[in-house]
């Protein structure tokens, strides 16, 4: 697929925006995406930009913004917007693209610098692949936020690889 703007390079950045229940898609090459970065951020909002690029891993419900749902507890993101409380600890991962900007706004940071849960300190085991995946997704968000789209694409590919190697099982659970 060619870039919607320059029509010369391969489109690797895919944006999805839902306006009045209508899905609008944009396909751009990295160069054009970078150039349009700021404009897109204001137009689409960073979380939508993320959704377009991060077209994976996130539970499928995420795509239909209105039905954003935690796969672990079934809590809806819209409920969080109503009551200001999350459903379960896993909601933090399920709604990461929505929560990270919120955490940054509240705390000026999205990274824990305090004490560790004791059991984890003792365990000191290698981070699980799921954790690794989570870390990559965070890096991806940061790359996009910093408009480092080339880096973002590299990270995205790593995520895809890792997800493929994690197998179909989880994939099925999400459906």
């Amino acid at each position, binding site marked *: 697929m060619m870039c919607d703007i320059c029509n010369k390079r391969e489109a690797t950045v895919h944006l999805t925006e839902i306006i009045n229940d209508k899905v609008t898609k944009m396909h751009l090459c990295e160069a054009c995406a970078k150039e349009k970065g700021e404009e897109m951020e204001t137009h689409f909002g960073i979380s939508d930009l993320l959704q377009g690029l991060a077209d994976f891993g996130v539970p499928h419900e995420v795509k239909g913004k209105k039905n954003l749902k935690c796969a672990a507890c079934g*809590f809806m993101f819209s409920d969080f917007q109503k009551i200001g*409380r*999350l459903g379960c600890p896993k909601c933090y991962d399920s709604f990461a693209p929505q929560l990270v900007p919120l955490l940054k706004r509240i705390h000026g940071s999205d*990274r*824990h*610098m*305090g004490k560790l*849960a004791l059991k*984890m300190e003792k365990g000191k085991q290698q981070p699980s692949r799921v954790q690794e995946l989570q870390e990559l997704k965070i890096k991806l968000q940061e790359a996009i936020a910093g408009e480092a789209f080339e880096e973002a694409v590299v990270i995205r590919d790593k995520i895809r690889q890792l997800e493929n190697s994690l197998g179909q099982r989880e994939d099925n659970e999400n459906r």
Partner: protein
Amino acid sequence: MKIDNLLYKESEWLKGTGPKANTVISSRIRLARNVDGYNFFTTASPETKRKIFDDIQAAVKKCKTLKGASLLSMKEITELDRQFLVERHLMSLEHVAEPESKGLVLDDKEVVSIMINEEDHLRIQVLQSGFNLTEAWRIIDAIDNDLAERLRFAFSPRYGFLTACPTNTGTGLRGSVMLHLPALAMTNQLNSVFQAISKLGLTIRGLYGEGTEATGEFYQISNQVTLGYSETDLIDNIEKIISRIIGRENTTRASLLSKNKEEITDKVWRAMGTLRSARIITSNETITLLSTIRLGIDLAIIKEPDVKVLNELFILMQPAHLQKLEGKALSPQERDVKRAALIREKLKS
């Protein structure tokens, strides 16, 4: 534990002996924790809530740091008793309603309290007299570690301790200091102080009174931010800022005394006169007058009563305390009469 025993007992944090007790009533640290593998309280089923309660109860019993502490089941105590515990700053108002599966762990000195199944599965609190967040942190950190040996807390390396509300995530730590700032209030300096505070990641609220209008000039200052800093950095930040506020309050008190000695002396003695004579008194009037007396003691305008007595009166004059002292339910009018009698008794010269 018999809750009634607390009525005649002096809480550790009310002794008025801690550092900077002339301006700081108490320091408090709270940690929010959740047990991994369960939904947060709001979305948990009644069955899950019971399981969480049982898990925590079992863990608490094994903790050395909580030896001798009592565990109260909210549904087994009356609503008046629950209100009473709120008035003693041992639990939140939110913990009073719908007592099913809610609990409170309490040590006999009223230093440590743990709410079970509040907004988060655990809300651990340590209270200290005066300006002493460091000691509060030392105590609560040990309890937290002790509990973590027996409970698996919901934790993510990235976001830290996971809480029902994202405003508490990370350290889950809220440090609060209860301050008495009458001189800054009299000289209209509070607004500029508050504006500066909000830029430094702290929040402030009046302890008594509605909305922005505080009664008695008591304020609680807490950290707003819980994520992105270590616990000790958060505490250092609060301590530094509060030290400056205390310094400013004290210099203002001194200059007030040198410039307006007559006016202040008059105000203090009038307050004492009213409190020693009144037959009917509302809690708002009481707070305002006790606040003036507190200032009078610090400025050595009067020698009695002891700060301890004042701190105690602030607690005892509240509705649930008055009703427990009387041993029966009282209407608001009856409470105003009972309150006045209690104050006269405590401030007898």
